C-alpha cells in the first residue's frame, strides 16, 4: 500500500472521452457468426425432429457410404455413414446437443464460481484474498489440456466428469480477471463516495462492483464458450471425454482416424462442424470483447 497523492492534474477533456486507440479495430457485427450459432442452437434443440436416423444405432450393411455428392453416395445418408453404418448427418445434429450442453453448463458454472471467488478476493483484502488467490494461481499454473486428460482418465470418462473437470480447470480464469477488475474498481472514487454515503461493504459489492464487472464476465464467457467446445472435442477425440456411443463430435473424428485414406468424411465432416462452431464463437467473442471491454483484448 502506498499513498498516491494525485499530482496537479491536467485538465481533462470536457468532451466525453474519445474512444480511439488500442485494438478497437472495427469488427463489424458478426452477423454470420450469429447465424451459425443460432442454427446450431436450433439444430441442437430440434435434433430429434430433424434427424432422419437413429444417432447411436446403425446397420452394418450401410457402413461407410460416402456423402451424397460423391460417387456411391446415397440421398438417404446426406453426409455418408461411419464404420458402424450410422448416419453422420444425424450424429452431427445430436453432437451439437452434446457440445452446446457442455459449453453452456461449464461456462455458466465456472463463471459463477469464478466470479464469486474473484469478487470476494478483490474486495475483501487480507487472508481471504491471499488464500483464494493462491488456489487460483496454483490451478492456473497447471497445463490445462494435460490436467483435463489426466483428471478425466482418473475419474472415468463420462459427461458429468468432463463437465466437472472443465469447470474445475476454468473457474480460475474468471477469478483472476474479476479480481483484477474488482481491485481496479475499488480504486475508483465512486466506491469511496459510496462509503461516505454510508453503504455497507456487501451493498457496495452488490450495487457498485458487480454491475461494473458484468461486461467482463460476459466477455469472458463468450470467449470461453469456444475454448470449452474445443477442449471437450479434444478430450473426446483422445478417448478421455464423452464415452461412445454418444455422438460427440470429437469422438466421431476419432472414429474415422484410421480410415482417413478410404473414408475421409467420417473424420473430416465432424471436424468441420467443430471448426465452424468454434470459429463462429471466437468471432462473436472477439466482437463482444472489442465492443464492451477493450481492456481484455489480450485474452
Amino acid at each position, binding site marked *: 500500500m502506498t499513498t498516491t497523492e494525485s499530482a496537479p492534474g491536467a485538465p481533462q477533456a470536457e468532451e466525453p472521452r474519445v474512444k480511439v486507440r488500442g485494438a478497437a479495430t472495427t469488427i463489424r457485427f458478426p452477423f454470420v457468426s450469429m447465424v451459425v450459432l443460432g442454427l446450431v442452437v436450433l439444430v441442437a434443440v430440434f435434433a430429434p425432429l430433424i434427424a432422419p436416423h437413429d444417432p447411436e444405432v446403425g446397420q452394418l450393411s450401410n457402413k461407410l457410404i460416402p456423402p451424397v455428392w460423391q460417387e456411391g453416395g446415397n440421398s438417404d445418408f446426406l453426409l455418408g455413414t461411419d464404420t458402424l453404418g450410422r448416419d453422420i448427418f444425424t450424429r452431427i445434429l445430436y453432437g451439437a446437443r452434446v457440445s452446446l450442453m457442455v459449453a453452456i453448463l461449464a461456462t455458466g458454472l465456472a463463471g459463477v464460481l469464478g466470479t464469486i471467488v474473484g469478487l470476494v478476493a478483490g474486495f475483501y483484502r487480507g487472508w481471504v484474498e491471499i488464500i483464494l488467490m493462491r488456489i487460483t494461481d496454483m490451478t492456473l499454473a*497447471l497445463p490445462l489440456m494435460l490436467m483435463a486428460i489426466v*483428471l478425466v482418465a*482418473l475419474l472415468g470418462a463420462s459427461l458429468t466428469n468432463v463437465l466437472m473437470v472443465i469447470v474445475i480447470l476454468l473457474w480460475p480464469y474468471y477469478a483472476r480477471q474479476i479480481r483484477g477488475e474488482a481491485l481496479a474498481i475499488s480504486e475508483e472514487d465512486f466506491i469511496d463516495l459510496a462509503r461516505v454515503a454510508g453503504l455497507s461493504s456487501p451493498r457496495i459489492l452488490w450495487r457498485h462492483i458487480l454491475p461494473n464487472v458484468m461486461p467482463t464476465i460476459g466477455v469472458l464467457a463468450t470467449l470461453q464458450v469456444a475454448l470449452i467446445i474445443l477442449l471437450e472435442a479434444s478430450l473426446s477425440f483422445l478417448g*478421455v471425454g464423452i464415452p461412445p456411443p454418444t455422438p460427440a463430435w470429437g469422438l466421431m473424428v476419432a472414429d474415422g*482416424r484410421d480410415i482417413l485414406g478410404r473414408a475421409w468424411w467420417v473424420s473430416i465432416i465432424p471436424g468441420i462442424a467443430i471448426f465452424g462452431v468454434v470459429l463462429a464463437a*471466437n468471432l462473436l467473442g472477439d466482437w463482444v470483447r472489442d465492443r464492451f471491454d477493450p481492456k481484455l483484448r489480450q485474452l
Partner: protein
Amino acid sequence: MRRFILARLAQAVVSIFVLITVLFFMVRLTGDPVERMIPPQVTEEMANELKAAYGLDKPLLVQYGVFLGGLVTGDLGTSLYFRGRTVGELLSLRILPSLELSVFSMMFSLLIALPLGVYAAKYRGRGSDYVARIFSILGGAAPSFLVGLVMLRIFSVQLQWFPTGGREGLLSVVLPTFTLGWFVSAGIMRLTRSSMLESLYGDYVKLARIKGVRESVVIWKHAFKNAALPVITYATVIFAAVIGGAIVTEYVFAWPGVGSLLIRAVIQRDFPVIQGAVILIGTAFVLCNFLADLAYAWINPKIRYTR
C-alpha cells in the same frame, strides 16, 4: 532481483509439489490401480500378491512417503503394462522427440507470429492486417487434431510427400511442426498485434518520431521492445498451448513423445506411467513459466533494478 528470482523459484517448487501430491492421492483415491487393471478371473490371493509387489498394501501415507522417496532418487516406479520396464526408462526414450517437436513448433510460430503481429499492427485496418488476422483466427479455431488429420490426408495419403506418422528423418517432423505451430502462433500473433497497437500509440513512440528517428527504428527499437513485455508475460498461455497441443499432435501423428505415451498409458490405465508423464510435463510447464517470469524481469528494468 535476487529476491524476485528466489520467490518465483519457491513458487515454482511449491506448484510442482502440490501437483505431485494431488496427483498421487487422486490416483489412489479414485480406485486401486491393480484392481482396475487385473482381469476378474484372477484370485484374491494373486491380487494381493500383486499389490504387495507394487507396495500397494501399505497405508496410504507410507505409500506416499515411499513414492516421494522414489522421486527424489529418480525412481518413478515400474510400468504396469510393459512389465519390468521402469517408468524412468520409458520416459527417457520419449523426452527427446517431445522436446524436438516443441522447440521446432515454438520456433516456427515465433518466426511467423512476431513479424506478422508487428506488421498487422503497423498497417492496421489494411490488407496485411486482414491476412494476419485471418491466419490467426483460423489457427485459433481449428482443432489441432483436425488440422493434423487434414494434413495427413492431403500431404501423406494423397500426395505422399510426407510419412503418415512416426519419427523418421527430417520430413516426418514437418507436418507435426506446422500443425502445432499454427495453433500456437495464432495466440502469439494476436497478443503481439494488440500489444504493438498499444505501444504504437504511446507517448514514447511519439517522442521517438519527434526526435526524427526512422520509422523502422521507431517500430522495432521503441515500440516492439515494450510490446514484447506483455507477450512474454503471457508466455504462460503460450506454453500451455504448446504443451496441450503437443499431446494431441503427438497422438495424431503417432509421434513417439511423452504426450502419446501419456495417452496410451491413460487408455491402458498404466498409472505409474501416467504419474511419471504428468510429473514430467507438469514440471516442464512450471519451469517454463518460471523462465518466462525471469525473462520478463530481465527485460523489464522496473523489476531488474528493484533488488
